[in-house]
């Protein structure tokens, strides 16, 4: 659909993605390319719906008449954005205190969820409940169902296939706890998701199981609950900006997969190196026992190698526990985002099909029927939600990866510093003039 594109969209010429302005940035008059400019909130704030600068999939002008309900709800969202991006936060959620429960039928772990909030949606200022993994799983499914236009953060994997992992080991539980905490924090930070009814119940209900059984469809605001369109509609072309997002996610997931494999390989090599070191050090000890004047120096070297071995073990443990899980999380994230993109395509396809059907009808004054309008509304809301979420996601991703990679560098620096200290402290021992024994 090559109708006159808004100025910010890239041309279809052979540019590298790098040279193209970011799909979400620069639709405003601000710099599209550039250093630290985060996609400006101006995109959403302070403009009324229908502004020409807003990127729309069809490449044409936005439909002049949009239902007031949808634009006001959008404004609501914008205002919420404003609040969240501002200084005051009114919702805090933490996951901690894992505990093992042994029952007749099964053994499982629960985590304590602590919530502090001043929001009116919460009856009490503070809550503390216990939840297990399957509760989180339920929550995520509910969020996907009730907020299909939004990107739902991923959960850590249900089962860990690789190797024999003890589900109840301290390391595994701690890794999982961190991931679950991240999951809830991402929802908490989201201007729409954090107000979701199911989320609220998850945080507050004493008996979650009873609530789960109800399965009632709750009243939701217009535009927020878009029933999943089960298809039959095929989208001809994905609009350029969403195609760019799709392409980006594909490559992104691919690169992350490669990084995951490299990281795992490094850990494997480091562990094998560690095994050899653990044999190497003690040989100096054995030698030391044969010697007179050289005994202390040799013993010193043995101890030194032992210290380096310990430092190496700490490095590999840290990388396994802190680095790999976050990578995997982002791979899962991009997978779920791609399916949201597909849903969006579905919604657009439905709208276009219906619009075509209307155009084909021979009428004097073709008037857009209500249901087609609703479709359009749905599509536009979806597009807006998705774009907003993508922006948020990009920001968070950047911060998360900056932190993750700096963390990796840090761990390596610490490892070398420990080894350096060990070797520097052995030098004076080696240089010492021994008394004649």
């Amino acid at each position: 659909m090559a109708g006159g594109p808004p100025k910010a969209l890239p041309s279809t010429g052979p540019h590298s993605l790098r040279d193209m302005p970011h799909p979400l940035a620069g639709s405003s008059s601000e710099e599209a390319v550039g250093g630290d400019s985060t996609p400006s909130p101006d995109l959403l704030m302070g403009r009324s719906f229908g502004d020409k600068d807003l990127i729309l999939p069809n490449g044409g002008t936005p439909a002049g008449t949009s239902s007031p309900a949808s634009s006001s709800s959008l404004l609501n969202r914008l205002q919420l954005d404003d609040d969240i991006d501002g200084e005051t936060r009114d919702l805090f959620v933490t996951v901690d205190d894992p505990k093992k429960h042994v029952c007749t039928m099964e053994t499982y772990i629960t985590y304590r969820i602590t919530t502090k909030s001043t929001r009116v949606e919460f009856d009490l200022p503070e809550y503390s409940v216990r939840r297990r993994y399957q509760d989180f799983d339920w929550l995520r499914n509910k969020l996907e169902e009730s907020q299909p236009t939004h990107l739902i953060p991923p959960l850590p994997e249900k089962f860990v296939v690789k190797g024999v992992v003890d589900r109840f080991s301290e390391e595994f539980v701690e890794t999982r706890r961190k991931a679950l905490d991240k999951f809830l924090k991402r929802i908490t930070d989201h201007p729409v998701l954090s107000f979701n009814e199911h989320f609220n119940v998850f945080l507050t209900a004493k008996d979650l199981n009873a609530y789960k059984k109800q399965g009632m469809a709750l009243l939701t605001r217009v535009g927020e609950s878009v029933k999943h369109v089960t298809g039959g509609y095929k989208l001809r072309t994905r609009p350029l900006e969403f195609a760019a997002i799709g392409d980006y996610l594909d490559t992104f997931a691919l690169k992350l997969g490669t990084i995951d494999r490299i990281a795992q390989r490094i850990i494997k090599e480091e562990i094998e190196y560690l095994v050899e070191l653990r044999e190497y050090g003690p040989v100096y000890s054995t030698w030391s026992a044969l010697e007179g004047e050289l005994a202390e120096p040799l013993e010193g070297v043995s101890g030194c190698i032992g210290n380096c071995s310990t430092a190496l073990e700490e490095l590999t443990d840290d990388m396994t526990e802190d680095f790999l899980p976050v990578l995997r999380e982002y791979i899962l994230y991009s997978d779920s985002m791609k399916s949201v993109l597909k849903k969006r395509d579905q919604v657009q396809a439905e709208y276009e099909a219906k619009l075509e059907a209307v155009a084909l009808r021979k009428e004097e004054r073709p008037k857009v029927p209500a249901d087609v309008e609703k479709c359009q509304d749905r599509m536009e809301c979806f597009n807006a939600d998705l774009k907003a979420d993508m922006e948020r996601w990009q920001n968070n991703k950047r911060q998360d990866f900056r932190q993750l990679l700096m963390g990796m560098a840090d761990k390596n620096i610490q490892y070398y510093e420990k080894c350096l200290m060990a070797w520097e402290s052995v030098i004076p021992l080696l240089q010492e003039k021994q008394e004649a024994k």
Partner: protein
Amino acid sequence: MQETYTAYLIETRSVEHTDGQSVLTDSLWRRYSEFELLRNYLLVYYPHIVVPPLPEKRAEFVWHKLSADNMDPDFVERRRIGLENFLLRIASHPILCRDKIFYLFLTQEGNWKETVNETGFQLKADSRLKALNATFRVKNPDKRFTELKHYSDELQSVISHLLRVRARVADRLYGVYKVHGNYGRVFSEWSAIEKEMGDGLQSAGHHMDVYASSIDDILEDEEHYADQLKEYLFYAEALRAVCRKHELMQYDLEMAAQDLASKKQQCEELATGTVRTFSLKGMTTKLFGQETPEQREARIKVLEEQINEGEQQLKSKNLEGREFVKNAWADIERFKEQKNRDLKEALISYAVMQISMCKKGIQIWTNAKECFSKM
């Protein structure tokens, strides 16, 4: 059929006292087999000296990257260093440095082999020394030598073990560093789809490449440490040889003393007529008839001559033995000092290498961290 071999250029410089300048006095080529010949000669003529060892003939304790090929330039270079070290050790030894054959090795290119062989040292060599497994029932060896032999066995064993494990450690370390190089490529590819994150990723990737390639120099330096250990692995063998020589001398001494004692016994029995010791002669005499007094007198005379000779020999053997012990122990003490000095230095330089490796690692990761912070 033509043979390919490597020859080494030996340049000898003498240091002029007046101005400290060194003047090239001799320059010739030698191949490994000639070094071996020199060493074998020294072993025979100086059995009480811990003779410096040659570098290994074939590359051992290799880790995967090192070539085991004798023609490989890295191997040849390390062998060159080893051979140079060998000659320097001899040149700095108070006794060995005066040896004529050694002097000729440095100065007489042609005919040197003939000259060495003319000394007939191969004939002098005690083949028993080469028989490593042969045991001798020595009754009274000098305890110090027994302990020393035990020590040299243990030293050989522990250094071999150390070198084997070190080679495996080097192999693994190589793997760790090299895999990081893959980050360089994937960060570069990833940076192509990113906006703000791109630059940071790209430059961090470059540092990962630097990290991966830094291991080559590190491990090359470590090979020198391994070579220092190897020298003492081979020195242990030389130490052992000296102890064996003592054992053999002691054994010969004890055998000679035993032989002398039995001859004396025989003599006494013949003189007094009592037969206490078994002798074949005695048995045949009993079986086939007594010998005449003249025959007996003759035998006694022969025995007395032999006893005299034997006593002389025993005396000189005793003297020899004591001289050997004295001289050998002096050289052993010298060797011990040298060993302690050298190995301490080797350990220090190893520690320095490790420190330098750690500092390099810190530097590279700090640079990478800075790049990440700019993402």
